[in-house]
C-alpha cells in the first residue's frame, strides 16, 4: 500500500495553488483543466438496466397488482480512472442503480458488463470474484459501521470473506496501512466507531472500501451527512486516492456542486430514466434537457450578487409516482415545453439531431424532443 502523508490529507493546499483556482474564473480556462480522462475500453458497461419492485395485494394468494419502476432502462459506461457522477432527486432511482451494480439487488432485465462479463447473470464463486473488484462507500457513517465491532474488525472482515486477498498473519498490518492511507492514526485499530467523529467514520468506510484493492468504488451520497468544513476534507481524500490507485468512481449525490467538483462526466436521472449525460462542462454550462436546466437553476449559489442575475426555473408540482409514471416523456407533467408529442413518444437518450453536425458542447446525449441549450448556472 502506498505511503500517504497524513498531514497533507488534512492540511490546506499551499497558498499559490488556491490562488490559481480563484484566478481561473474564466470558464474556458477551467474547461481545459477537466479534459476527459483518456477513454479506453470502458471498465463497466450498463445496458438497458431495469429494476421493477413488484406491488402485491392479498395475504395468502398474493397477486401482483403493479410495479414500482425504480430503474427503467438506463445505459451508460464507466471508464478506468474516471468519476461518473449521477444526480437526481429522491426517488429517481440513483441508489437502486448503485445496488444493482453491487449485485445487492437482482436486475429485472438488462445487462451490466464488467470487463466483458455480464455480472447480472453470475452467481456463486464467479460473482464473489467480481464483487472483490466493485466496492461501495455508504452514505451514513453512523449506521453503516457495526457499533459492536472495532475498526480493525470492520475493515478486517473483508479479508475473512476474501481470504485470498491477504494471508492471515498480515491482515492486522494491512488494516493499519489502510487506516494510514485514509489519514487516520493506525493506533486507532482497536477503537469502536462511536469514538470517532462523522468525518473520521466516513474515512473508516472508505478504508473498508479500499481494503480489497478494487477497481471500481460506488459511492452513494458519501459526504451528505457531513458538516461543510469536513466535507472538503473527505472529498480531497477521495480524489487523492483515485489518483493513487487509479480507481473508477460512480459518485451518486444530490448536491450538484459537489458532483461537478469531483466528476469527469455526469448523468442526470429522473424517474428511473437517464435524462442527460455528458462531461461536466457539457452538463453544467451547456445543458439541453429542461429537467437538468430546472435542477441547476434551483441550486442556490453562494454569491448574493447572483440573486438577481440568474434565471430561476421554478417547477410546479411534485415528482410523479414511479409506480405509475407518465406516458411518453416522464418529465412532461412538470415541463414548460411539453407538447402532444411528449405524451405519446418516449424521447431516446441520444445526441439531438440539430446539434449532431456541429462541434458544440451542446452535442451530448439528451433525452428530450425539444432539446435546446440554455445556461442557467452563470449570472446573465
Amino acid at each position: 500500500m502506498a505511503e500517504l502523508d497524513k498531514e497533507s490529507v488534512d492540511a490546506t493546499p499551499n497558498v499559490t495553488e488556491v490562488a490559481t483556482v480563484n484566478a481561473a474564473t474564466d470558464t474556458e480556462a477551467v474547461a481545459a483543466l477537466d479534459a476527459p480522462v483518456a477513454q479506453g475500453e470502458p471498465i463497466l458497461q450498463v445496458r438497458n438496466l431495469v429494476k421493477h419492485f413488484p406491488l402485491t395485494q392479498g395475504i395468502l394468494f398474493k397477486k401482483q397488482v403493479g410495479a414500482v419502476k425504480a430503474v427503467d432502462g438506463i445505459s451508460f459506461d464507466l471508464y478506468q480512472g474516471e468519476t461518473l457522477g449521477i444526480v437526481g432527486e429522491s426517488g429517481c432511482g440513483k441508489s437502486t442503480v448503485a445496488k444493482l451494480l453491487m449485485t445487492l439487488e437482482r436486475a429485472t432485465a438488462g445487462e451490466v458488463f464488467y470487463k466483458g462479463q455480464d455480472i447480472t447473470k453470475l452467481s456463486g464463486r464467479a460473482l464473489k470474484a467480481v464483487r472483490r473488484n466493485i466496492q461501495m462507500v455508504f452514505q451514513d457513517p453512523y449506521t453503516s459501521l457495526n457499533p459492536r465491532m472495532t475498526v480493525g474488525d470492520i475493515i478486517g472482515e473483508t479479508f475473512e470473506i476474501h481470504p485470498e486477498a491477504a494471508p492471515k498473519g498480515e491482515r492486522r498490518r494491512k488494516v493499519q496501512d489502510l487506516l494510514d492511507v485514509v489519514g487516520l492514526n493506525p493506533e486507532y485499530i482497536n477503537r469502536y466507531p462511536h469514538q470517532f467523529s462523522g468525518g473520521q467514520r466516513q474515512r473508516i468506510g472508505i478504508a473498508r472500501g479500499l481494503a480489497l484493492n478494487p477497481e471500481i468504488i460506488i459511492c452513494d451520497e458519501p459526504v451528505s451527512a457531513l458538516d461543510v468544513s469536513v466535507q472538503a476534507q473527505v472529498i480531497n481524500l477521495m480524489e487523492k486516492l483515485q489518483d493513487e490507485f487509479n480507481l473508477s468512481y460512480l459518485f451518486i449525490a444530490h448536491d450538484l456542486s459537489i458532483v461537478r467538483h469531483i466528476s469527469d462526466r455526469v448523468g442526470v436521472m429522473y424517474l428511473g430514466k437517464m435524462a442527460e449525460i455528458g462531461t461536466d462542462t457539457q452538463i453544467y454550462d451547456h445543458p439541453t434537457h429542461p429537467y437538468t436546466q430546472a435542477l441547476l437553476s434551483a441550486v442556490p449559489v453562494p454569491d448574493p450578487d447572483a440573486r438577481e442575475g440568474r434565471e430561476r426555473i421554478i417547477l410546479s408540482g411534485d415528482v410523479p409516482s414511479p409506480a405509475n409514471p407518465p406516458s411518453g416523456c416522464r418529465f412532461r407533467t412538470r415541463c414548460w415545453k411539453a407538447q402532444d408529442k411528449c405524451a405519446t413518444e418516449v424521447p431516446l437518450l441520444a445526441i439531438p439531431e440539430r446539434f449532431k453536425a456541429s462541434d458544440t458542447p451542446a452535442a451530448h446525449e439528451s433525452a428530450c424532443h425539444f432539446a435546446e441549450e440554455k445556461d442557467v448556472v452563470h449570472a446573465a
Partner: protein
Amino acid sequence: MLLEVRDLHVEFHTRDGVAKAVNGVNYSVAEGETLAVLGESGSGKSVTAQAVMGILDTPPGRISGGEILFQGHDLLKLKPEQRRRIRGQEMAMIFQDALSSLNPVLSVGEQLGEMFVVHRGMSRGDAKAKAIELMDRVRIPAARERVGNFPHQFSGGMRQRIMIAMALALEPDLIIADEPTTALDVTVQAQVMELLAELQRELNMGLILITHDLGVVADVADRIAVMYAGRIVETAPVHEIYEAPAHPYTKGLLRSIPRLDQKGQELYAIKGLPPNLLHIPPGCAFHPRCPMAQAVCRTDVPPLHTVDEERRSACHFWKETLDAR
C-alpha cells in the same frame, strides 16, 4: 428592534460534565428583516433559537445568563402562561423535519384549526374554514378536499408548506425557521424558499433562518450571523461577508464549498474537527483549526471587534483577515 438577544448563555448538564452550548450570543432582528444564522452541527444555532422560542428542554438545558428582549420585554422574566400566549401568536417556528413535527394521528385540518380554537376561541367549524384558507395561502392544491388528510398522505414539500401555514396561522411578528429546506430536494427547496420569502414580505415579519447552507443564505438573507462553538464569530450584511469575510472561519467555509458555475482544483479544507462542547479550547475556540493563529489566540478570548458600522468580527486578526484576500 423586534428581537434582541443579549449575552445569552445556555448550558446542558450531562453525565460527562457541563456542555456549554451557547456562550454569550448577541443578535437582533428588525421587522421585515431576514437574519441568517449560519453554523455547523453543535455550533449552538438551534439551541439559541429554542431559547428564544422558549422550547428548550430544561433540564438538561439551562439558560445561565442573558436577556431575550422581544418588542422591548425580557422573555426570560415572563411567567410560563404569558410565554405561551406569545408563542404561536407573536412568534412561531418552522422545523426541519415536517413528518416528525406534525402529529401523525390528527388530520392537517385539525392541527391547523387547533391554533384558532386555542388562541382565538373559535368554533371548530370556523377553525376548519380558516385551515382551508391557510392551505390555499401556502398553495396546497385542492385545499378543500385535502383538509381532512393526514400528514403521511402529503409529499415532503407539501408537508413543509403545512408547517409554514401553521407558523403563519396567527400572523406572528417573528418566524424562526430551523433548517426549513434541508430535508427537501432542490427543486422543492426552491419552491418552499420562494413561498416563505413572499409571505414574509407580505406580512412584514422578522425571519431568523437557521441553516448550514451558504447557498440558501446568499439567496434570501439580509444579514448573517456566523456561529462557532456557541459564539457569534462574525456578523455582517450578506453582500459584504461573501465579498470579504473578516473571520478566518467564515473565510474557510466560503472557500471549502465547491462551485456550481466553475470547476476548481483541490478544495480548500479547514483542518481538524469542530470542538467538543465539553472541552471548548481556551482563548479563541477556533484557534486549533485556524491558519492565522498566534500565541494570543490560545489565551485571550477575542471580543467582537467593530469592523465597520454594520460588521463585527470576533478575531484578534480581523484586519489581517480582511486584507489577506
